[in-house]
């Protein structure tokens, strides 16, 4: 019996294939031992062959390798076996649950927690990159105090805490300010209590995109302070007014799943999605139709649609709307058509489509970040209301979400500092020096008398602090949060601290003890962990779980928290709804409006120090390590700008110089610039990369207390040109049918969509038959020889392009799982990025009379049955495994690169440099980043070809498990890293030889096709055509 065959005994009749998406993951309740006195080396002390995990392909073994056993074995840790700990992702405030894979005491991979109802085991790219925050080489490694000469020097924790206490002593309470990020749990309460202890109420919760407009609009229209929750899965029609709900707005992972489920429904109606925004971003690219109104007029379009619904009585038995007639009367479709540039026909059509079934209109994202945003959001609320969506697809949590969050408070702080009334300023979990409009905060900050930063990284705000008390990484922390009412999420340390950091909770408690008095009385907890546990006694009561607290606590830790169905509250129209008014957005005379949008990859910039994210191509432009300005080709032509030309973008507040990216997906009077780059500090991977587009924005808050992200600008070419660090070759498919699509109409008519239009005419039948016979003969030949003889699985993937949103989470997951090195901007320019899976983004139309359409296609090794790469390798480094993979034996590779030439899919990647060599300048994992290397995967050295092997280490691992437990592998038991993280569930892995497996059934669908099928490569990856829900002409 072949050793590898973990499948034997499978009768193929169990019929359970496809049901079991995620196998149970052994999440152990108990965190690793953290007893005092054990030195930090513990997690470095790994065992045996795993030493330092850098299993390179260089043949020579170093002399005298050391085996360092654990002094005391870490609980739950067996060398060579992964342990999973449940915790919560803090890269944004959505509240996705994590399972962190820990090997030999160090976290090596972040996976989604399937039990968490928000993300259900899925993660976005930013979540995946959390590991690079943990091991970031530019973390603040120990408390630092600023010296007289302006440099920082390390200081012991005791002294640091004493210093803070000393500064607080004798300071008037109202002169102490505390800035935090968005906190919804115990830490939030602790900070408030701490401030109360020193007699202050100056608490600023700062989140760059704090839904200010949405909250204002909800108050105006429905009379409550809340942010709506959308039920995508229930909606058959989605109308987004600038809401980038698949990338940064709200809870992208959760929304992506709902959205994908609605669109890719194979029974019943497929959801249709129309995006209304002057720019087509990543979210807009998934739309079936893109409508580009004049900047700031989305709200008018919404009201015009509402107008038609109400006036034409399109909704039978709709909610009472007579009160709105006055308001809606001002938005006649023909007037709106003139003002917004969206034709009356479109408005009428949208109105009809909108009421045809369960629908959903969303305001948010960039649509809710301009001067007129509160009006837009209110208009969309009204639209939802008149269409009867409120309380059905649009719901509101029982408790206020995001209270008091926003830019206005920070703006108040800026004023207070300038006024000289801030003596002690604490900043935690925010980087306002970089991430606020203009330079006002940064300029003012120096006037605060004593600045304490709890920054984890050397960011801009930390650099201007007097004292840095580095917080632990979220993966090293105890914490909790409640992102939605009823969802109590826990964070637990998955490993001991990488550096000499301390959780801010402990620091604040320590300071309170030092201060004595009120502060000490209010905060008596001995440690942050106790404080948290105390709070969870309350949670136990709230959620009503009986039994001992320890059991409740351990179960919560195991599950990652307590999940209760979010309680919602029904809402009705408030009187103020009829009084909403517009605020015209600023525009230059004949000028251009710049949309400054949050990068799907870096958000406001907090992800910029993660090399995985820097190297991750932007889903829209496919540019890495950079900032750019998106310009319509006509505008670019008018201004004499071509792709890659450096352009000075100048607004009233400031200017930045960035290369131009010529893009059909912005209006002619609009340019767009992503946020997130242009850091002046924040570590080696972020510094001096791109430009900070916040500098273009005005520092004055909008009427609703937010930041205006639409700003009038002028463009001027500087005469400098650069080759964009883009991973894209051609954005057009040249009619080659790489990413194929079919319309619902075609599907209904029984057509399966575009044939490969350019394929040569089919072979005569007898030739076809002969080829088949010859092929069979070849298979028979090798089936007679071990190890090929016998029954083997044939691993394959099915990828549903209707589901794929291009979010690129799979790319980062692949980097993490497979130890893929980042190569840096210069090498990306040379096309040498190593990304084993890439999201190809093709455009259709836009340059002709067809509307612009974007298609995404995840391209990884297709594991061809007749792989062109295999026979050309002179040393069998590339070969076919018995289970149908294109095996790549790194240590056998001599580096002829012929396989890459002969791969029609171009999915083979070569190690041009020695990125696995710590002594080399191209080393990809500077200490301690190397600790995230997956010990199951060989790190490839210089001169070796590498590629996707469907996570063969996971396949072998599960086969070992199956063999050891004595039962056959179940379908779905093995998950590739890309599949595991895909928020849209677009990727399915399994055995194609098992007819009942989920992948087999998907691959057999009529929309299935193989890329470049005419080459007879017989790929193991089947793509399902993107089904476009378009209005047929």
């Amino acid at each position: 019996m072949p050793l590898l065959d973990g499948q034997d005994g499978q009768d193929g009749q169990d019929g359970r294939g496809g049901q079991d998406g995620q196998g149970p993951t052994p999440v152990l309740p108990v965190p690793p031992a953290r007893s005092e006195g054990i030195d930090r080396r513990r997690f470095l002390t790994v065992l045996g062959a795993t030493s330092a995990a850098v299993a390179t392909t260089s043949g020579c073994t170093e002399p005298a390798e050391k085996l360092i056993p654990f002094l005391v074995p870490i609980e739950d840790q067996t060398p060579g076996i992964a342990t999973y700990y449940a915790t919560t992702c803090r890269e944004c405030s959505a509240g996705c649950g994590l399972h962190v894979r820990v090997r030999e005491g160090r976290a090596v991979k972040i996976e989604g927690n399937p039990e968490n109802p928000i993300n259900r085991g899925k993660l976005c790219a930013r979540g995946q990159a959390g590991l690079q925050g943990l091991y970031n080489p530019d973390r603040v490694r120990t408390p630092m105090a600023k010296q007289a000469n302006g440099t920082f020097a390390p200081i012991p924790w005791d002294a640091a805490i004493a210093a803070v206490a000393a500064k607080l002593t004798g300071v008037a309470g109202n002169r102490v300010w505390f800035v935090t990020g968005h906190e919804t749990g115990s830490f939030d309460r602790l900070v408030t209590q701490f401030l109360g202890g020193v007699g202050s109420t100056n608490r600023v919760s700062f989140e760059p995109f704090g839904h200010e407009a949405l909250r204002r609009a909800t108050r105006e229209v429905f009379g409550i302070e809340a942010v709506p929750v959308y039920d995508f899965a229930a909606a058959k029609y989605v109308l987004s007014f600038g809401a980038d709900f698949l990338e940064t707005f709200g809870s992208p992972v959760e929304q992506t799943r709902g959205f994908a489920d609605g669109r890719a429904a194979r029974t019943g109606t497929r959801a249709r999605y129309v995006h209304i925004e002057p720019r087509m971003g990543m979210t807009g690219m998934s739309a079936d139709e893109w409508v580009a109104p004049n900047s700031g007029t989305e709200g008018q379009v919404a009201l015009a649609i509402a107008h038609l619904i109400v006036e034409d009585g399109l909704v039978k038995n709709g909610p009472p709307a007579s009160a709105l007639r006055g308001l809606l009367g001002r938005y006649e479709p023909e007037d709106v058509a003139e003002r917004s540039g969206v034709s009356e026909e479109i408005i009428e059509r949208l109105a009809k489509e909108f009421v045809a079934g369960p629908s959903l209109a969303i305001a948010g994202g960039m649509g809710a970040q301009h001067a007129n945003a509160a009006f837009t959001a209110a208009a969309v609320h009204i639209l939802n209301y008149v269409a009867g969506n409120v309380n059905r697809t649009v719901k509101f949590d029982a408790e206020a979400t995001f209270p008091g969050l926003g830019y206005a408070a920070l703006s108040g702080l800026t004023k207070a500092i300038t006024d000289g009334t801030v003596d002690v300023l604490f900043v935690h979990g925010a980087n306002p020096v970089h991430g606020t409009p203009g330079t006002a905060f940064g300029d003012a900050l120096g006037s605060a008398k004593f600045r304490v930063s709890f920054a984890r990284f050397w960011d801009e705000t930390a650099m201007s602090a007097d004292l840095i008390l580095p917080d632990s990484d979220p993966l090293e922390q105890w914490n909790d949060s409640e992102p939605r009412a009823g969802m109590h999420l826990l964070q637990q340390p998955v490993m001991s601290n990488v550096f000499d950091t301390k959780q801010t909770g402990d620091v604040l408690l320590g300071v309170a003890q030092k201060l004595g008095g009120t502060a000490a009385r209010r905060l008596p907890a001995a440690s942050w962990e106790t404080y948290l546990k105390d709070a969870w006694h309350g949670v136990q009561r709230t959620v009503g779980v009986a039994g001992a607290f320890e059991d409740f606590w351990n179960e919560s830790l195991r599950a990652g928290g307590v999940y209760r169905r979010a309680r919602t509250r029904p809402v009705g129209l408030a009187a103020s709804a009829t009084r909403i008014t517009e605020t015209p957005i600023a525009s230059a005379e004949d000028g251009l409006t710049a949309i400054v949008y949050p990068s799907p990859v870096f958000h406001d910039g907090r992800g910029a120090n993660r090399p995985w994210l820097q190297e991750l191509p932007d889903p829209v432009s496919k540019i890495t390590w950079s900032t750019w300005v998106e310009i319509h080709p006509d505008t670019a032509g008018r201004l004499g700008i071509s792709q890659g030309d450096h352009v000075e973008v100048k607004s009233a507040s400031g200017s930045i110089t960035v290369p131009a990216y010529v893009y059909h997906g912005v209006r002619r009077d609009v340019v767009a610039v992503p946020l997130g780059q242009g850091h002046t500090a924040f570590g080696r991977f972020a510094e001096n990369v791109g430009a900070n587009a916040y500098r273009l924005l005005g520092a004055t808050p909008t009427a609703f207390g937010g930041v205006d992200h639409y700003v009038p600008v002028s463009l001027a070419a500087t005469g400098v040109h650069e080759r964009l660090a883009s991973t894209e070759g051609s954005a057009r498919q040249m009619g080659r049918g790489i990413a194929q699509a079919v319309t619902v109409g075609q599907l209904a008519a029984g057509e399966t969509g575009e044939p490969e239009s350019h394929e040569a005419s089919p072979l005569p039948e007898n030739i076809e038959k002969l080829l088949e016979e010859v092929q069979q003969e070849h298979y028979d030949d090798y089936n007679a020889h071990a190890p090929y003889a016998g029954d083997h699985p044939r691993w394959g993937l099915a990828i549903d392009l209707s589901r794929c949103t291009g979010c690129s989470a799979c790319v980062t997951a692949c980097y993490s799982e497979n130890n893929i090195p980042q190569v840096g901007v210069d090498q990306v320019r040379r096309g040498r990025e190593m990304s084993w899976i890439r999201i190809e983004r093709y455009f259709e139309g836009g340059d002709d009379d067809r509307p612009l359409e974007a298609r995404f296609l995840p391209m990884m090794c297709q594991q061809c049955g007749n792989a062109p790469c295999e026979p050309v390798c002179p040393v069998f480094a590339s070969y076919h495994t018995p289970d149908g993979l294109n095996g790549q034996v790194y240590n056998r590779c001599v580096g002829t690169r012929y396989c890459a030439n002969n791969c029609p899919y171009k999915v083979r990647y070569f190690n041009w440099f020695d990125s696995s060599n710590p002594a080399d300048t191209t080393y990809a994992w500077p200490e301690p980043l190397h600790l995230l290397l997956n010990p199951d995967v060989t790190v490839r050295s210089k001169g070796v070809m590498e590629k996707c092997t469907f996570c063969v280490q996971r396949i072998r691992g599960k086969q070992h498990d199956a063999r050891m437990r004595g039962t056959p592998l179940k379908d779905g038991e093995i998950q590739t890293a890309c599949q595991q993280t895909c928020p849209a569930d677009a990727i399915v892995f399994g055995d194609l030889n098992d007819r009942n497996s989920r992948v087999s059934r998907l691959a057999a669908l009529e929309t299935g096709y193989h890329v470049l099928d005419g080459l007879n490569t017989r790929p193991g990856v089947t793509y399902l055509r993107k089904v476009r829900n378009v209005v047929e002409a």
Partner: protein
Amino acid sequence: MTTATQPTYSEVTRDVVASMGRPGRGYYILLGFVLFVLAAGGVAFLYQIRYGLGMAGYQPPVMWAVYITDFVFWVGIAHCGTLISAILYLFRSAWRTAVYRTAEAMTVFAVMTAGLFPVIHLGRLWYAYWLFPYPNQRQLWPNFKSPLLWDVFAISTYFTVSTVFLIVGLVPDVAAVRDKVTGFRGKIYKLFALNWRGTDSQWRHYTKAYLFLAALATPLVLSVHSVVSWDFAVSIVPGWHTTIFAPYFVAGAIYSGLAMVVTLLVPLRTTLGLERYVHEEHFDNLGKLLLLTGSIVGYAYLVEYFIAWYSGSPYERESFYFRAFGDYWWATWTMIICNAFLSQLLWFPKIRRSIPMMFVLSLFINLGMWFERYVIIVISLSHEYEPFAMDHYTPTWVDWTITAGSFAWFFTWFLLFARNFPTVSLTEVKEIIPMQRKTTAHK
């Protein structure tokens, strides 16, 4: 050859031995320059080994570039030598005798140069020996289905056979030199002459062996460039995957080799004082061969474009459209003009017989043939099936320095050879001159 200029046997010996005399300062300056460039190439090579192949300009999907261009170029150069020495030998073509030694030496050195590149371009060249089927503890064998393994066999066979062929041809000549030169060099030649004395028995086996070597070398030379062409033709890359490649490459190889022979002969005959033996007649004949092979190459270009259109394959069509009008149009047109058009000038006997013209033309053809390989390799790879993965390649200084180094390597060997060995075959030149006889009328 007219009788008026026909030298006697002793004149031949005298002139050829004189050509191997003490060289002038120019020779040493040239040799010094060539060695300097060789050293620069060596440094660039070491640099590339240390830091990785990324130092060269590779831009995926262009995974083969200047090095493989150089490889094919040098293998191509090699071919002409074997053509002149073996194929024309079998055809009993008399004019070859004066030039074949130069061509054959060129062959050996060109193969030596070409053989460097598959190693230079390897990612892990220290494991290059894995390509040989030797028993090893890993119990692994190489993949004989890989064209690269065919290359290993073809190139090593070609190198062995052409070296042997060169040495066999040299033996009687060295013996003749041995009998004229004294002192230390004489001793060396004595050693190299392998006890050759021109006895009836030696000649009897020698002529037979030489004939059979020529007979073996003839299919070999055709096969080697065919195998090299199959490196490309058996792949699925549009622009590579075509059945015309083997004859096309062989013709191109001979074409480029002939051009290189002209390039070498022109300075050689003047500096070594061999004008009497290598003259217009030879250039005329070389010109005719150039015209023939150049026309075949031109025809192959036409066929390539025709088939790209006629196949109906969109990939082929776009690949060829891209060649002519894409980013690299300049390379394509350099190749077409130098190879297909300039060779047509050779219809004029005046040009064929003008040595300066032939020299200039040969330089252009060398350039054109280098670009032919560049076009085939780089352009085809940069514009393949997958539009999203297309990219644009530009070489770096490392590519250029190593390429220059390869020329230096070649010329180093050639200069050393020309100084120390007869560049015109004594024996074969004599062979076509009738031996002196007492009675003039015989047969």
